[in-house]
């Protein structure tokens, strides 16, 4: 008998314009000690399935069909009372979530948060025993260094450490089933690998089963026994991991696998001029607010950086969060204060003030990571794209500008009617196309791309990369491509710059960096991103 047996599960959400059927007729089994991965793009309903097991959905807005069955160890979970569910939640079945920054309560100590479920499920537990158990759990998740710091608060820990604490909480009562909802998505690549190794190790040690929810095929390949692919609320394919990656049957799975970033940058012309370069570029933030000005201390985010980008090429900037790579991008465009020289086609950008920068803004554009916060929700797509045209006096009349906007929308793969709609009516990928259109409509020469694909689904990522490559070929654009995802960087960059703590670790031609990395840090980044095994 399967440990978890979901049969004909349907989940619908009540809404204004009729109900949304998020999950339709999903059946899946998880056997004891098995790692099953549920894969799909955003909106496929995979998280909804996971939430249904412990009934964490917003009932009664969410509801199940009459045929839906979720059996755990033969016991039907749907329709259980809250008290009965509580004895299973966090005890026999545990869950960990994507966002380690918000999943922990910022006001409670680590001890309190880990021991909470111990006290909840073990009647008459003594405090000394709880402390011993918490220490053991911390050892299990590789946080021995916290043994004597049980009163540490979440903000004292890094993202990876917080995720380990989350796992410790989930493991507290030795569950038979762990549901992991995108457990590594918000983490840096090297930390991701550590967390996956930890989960796999815990699974082998305790013999629990794991239901892994993820959009990341690399993760799946590394640890799952079996893979279920979801699309539009339905399971379209189920197979052993090795089989699925070798010979995917369903067209959607094939498409997913094919959309892993691939290809390489376009060949460069010989002998090109330098488009942009820096000398001793520094960015620092105030790290305190002292009473006396001479007590001011600074946090240096970018340290004396010298970079050179040839015209028409792409410089990929790679680094983990906090490495200063986004700050570098903003500093180059003079969107934040910096020190040191910035040369752009022989001009000193760093010596220009706001007004003197304005005419150059047309040539220097930027696309941001988050397609949701980078578009003003109160403006139509047309207004958003038109703004830059107006500033730089492109297109004399409204009608002329409209033609330019229509052409631009067409070029990024949207239809002209989109200009009357608002950003919230578009998907993430479409919004990113709008962001690109906003920048490209000015016909810039240099574009800073700050993680333009990170928030997008795999298949959409591939489309955006193709679009960017087309633009580069057509207009001879120069890109500064910032990303933490080495696979995307490899697909688009001529040269790569690896950053850590605001400094350059290594730089060189893409092929050289990826084939023969010189530094340990670069090697660990590459192996985390490309290895097929843990």
């Amino acid at each position: 008998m399967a440990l978890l047996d979901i049969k004909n599960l349907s989940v619908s959400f009540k809404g204004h314009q009729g109900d949304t059927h998020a999950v339709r007729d999903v059946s899946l089994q998880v056997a004891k000690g098995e790692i099953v991965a549920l894969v799909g793009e955003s909106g496929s309903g995979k998280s909804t399935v996971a939430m249904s097991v412990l009934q964490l959905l917003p009932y009664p807005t969410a509801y199940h069909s009459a045929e839906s069955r979720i059996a755990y160890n033969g016991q039907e979970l749907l329709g259980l009372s809250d008290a009965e569910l509580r004895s299973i939640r966090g005890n026999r079945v545990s869950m960990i979530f994507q966002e380690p920054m918000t999943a922990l309560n910022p006001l409670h100590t680590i001890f309190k948060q880990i021991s909470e479920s111990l006290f909840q499920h073990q009647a008459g537990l003594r405090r000394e025993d709880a402390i011993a158990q918490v220490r053991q759990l911390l050892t299990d998740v590789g946080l021995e260094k916290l043994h004597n710091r049980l009163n540490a608060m979440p903000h004292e820990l890094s993202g990876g450490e917080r995720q380990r604490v989350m796992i410790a909480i989930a493991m507290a009562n030795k569950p038979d089933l762990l549901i992991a909802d995108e457990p590594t998505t918000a983490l840096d690549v090297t930390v991701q690998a550590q967390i996956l190794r930890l989960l796999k190790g815990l699974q082998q040690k305790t013999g629990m089963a794991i239901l892994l929810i993820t959009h990341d095929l690399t993760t799946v390949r590394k640890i799952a026994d079996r893979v279920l692919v979801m699309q539009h609320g339905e399971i379209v394919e189920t197979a052993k991991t090795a089989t699925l990656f070798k010979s995917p049957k369903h067209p959607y799975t094939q498409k997913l696998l094919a959309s892993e970033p691939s290809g390489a940058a376009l060949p460069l012309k010989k002998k090109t001029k330098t488009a942009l370069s820096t000398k001793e570029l520094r960015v620092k933030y105030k790290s305190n607010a002292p009473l006396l000005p001479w007590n001011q201390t600074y946090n240096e985010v970018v340290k004396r950086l010298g970079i050179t980008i040839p015209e028409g090429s792409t410089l990929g900037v790679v680094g983990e969060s906090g490495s200063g790579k986004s700050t570098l991008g903003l500093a180059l465009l003079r969107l934040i204060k910096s020190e040191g020289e910035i040369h752009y086609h022989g001009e000193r950008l760093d010596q220009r003030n706001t007004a003197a920068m304005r005419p150059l803004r047309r040539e220097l554009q930027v696309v941001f990571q988050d397609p949701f916060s980078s578009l003003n929700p109160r403006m139509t797509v047309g207004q958003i794209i038109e703004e830059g045209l107006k500033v730089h006096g492109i297109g004399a009349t409204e009608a002329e500008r409209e033609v330019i906007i229509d052409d631009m929308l067409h070029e990024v793969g949207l239809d002209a009617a989109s200009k009357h709609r608002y950003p919230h009516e578009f998907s993430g990928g479409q919004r990113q196309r709008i962001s690109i259109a906003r920048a490209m409509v000015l016909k810039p020469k240099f574009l800073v791309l700050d993680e333009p694909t990170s928030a997008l689904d795999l298949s959409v990522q591939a489309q955006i990369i193709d679009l960017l490559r087309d633009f580069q070929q057509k207009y001879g654009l120069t890109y500064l491509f910032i990303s933490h995802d080495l696979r995307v960087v490899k697909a688009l960059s001529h040269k790569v710059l690896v950053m850590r703590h605001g400094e350059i670790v290594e730089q060189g031609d893409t092929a050289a960096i990826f084939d023969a990395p010189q530094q340990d840090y670069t090697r660990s980044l590459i192996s985390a991103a490309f290895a097929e095994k843990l």
Partner: protein
Amino acid sequence: MALSPLWQRRLHKFKGNRRGYWSFLVFMSLFVVSLFAELLANDKPIVLHYDGAYYFPAWKAYPETTFGGDLETETVYTDPFVAELLGKKESWAIWPPIRFHYSTIDFENTAPAPAPSNERHFLGTDDQGRDVMARILYGFRVSVLFGLVLTGISALIGIVAGAVQGYYGGWVDMIFQRVIEVLNSIPFLVLLITIASMVTPGFWTLMAIMVFVMWVYLVDVVRAECLKTRNQDYVRAARALGVKDSKILFRHVLPNAFVAGLTLIPIVLNISITSLTALDFLGFGLPPETASLGELLKQGKDNVHAPWLLMSGFVTLAVIMSLLVFIGEAVRDALDPRKAG
């Protein structure tokens, strides 16, 4: 003007809150009705037909000589002598339902002032023999108009000041915040009374004084919202496009902050009306002859043996306050992005 889908959804949500929506409808109809107070409570007929010609005494002053009397001054239509004059020729008149203006002193009333409810005065009269119903009608209008104008001006100043502070931050923010703290630390009524005792308050002077203290209410919310918005990527993108600071402020930052300010506006309106009432009650408010709710409450306090004064003033105020609070709640919920449906 077509509403954006966002506003359509908000409007839908606002209408979905039945208590708030109905409060809004009731409040608006009361307000619109009170705007036509001259047609509802007046000591002059709306239309007068006399000797083949039409007269509109509610809008135009006619001397008594027009109707064959002796005086060059405006006709007093309630005077029995005038009634007699009009009766001599073929005439008719359409009177408002309440035949008293807020300033009319009813000398004909049989009971001594303050008189309880009778067939002449539905809610009785105050201690100067003026009809309470008429005074409430006009008082309501003055209070709401005063409140609306005060709220409008304070909101405008508050939102702009908050936006400037939030967007520029740094020293501008620092100095503005200290000024606001100083203003906030002065007891509101004491300040008003002090100023009101130096200048004779009329409608607009009182307005100016109250704007001086009321504008700070919206600043904090709008400022916080702007501090958040200025770090959004779309503001960065606008700067990268080369858009001027002032344009970014008005096009990208302010509209978002405005919504936050909007949720507070019914509350500010409420505070405005209460403050005006309090000042009138204390005798530092609008000129004494003005119909006002605060003055009615004061009369109620002075004439404990005439409970209808206090009761009608209290009920009127309670109704206004409750309606505004319900509307405020509905507006807040409708604009709250976290509340679905």
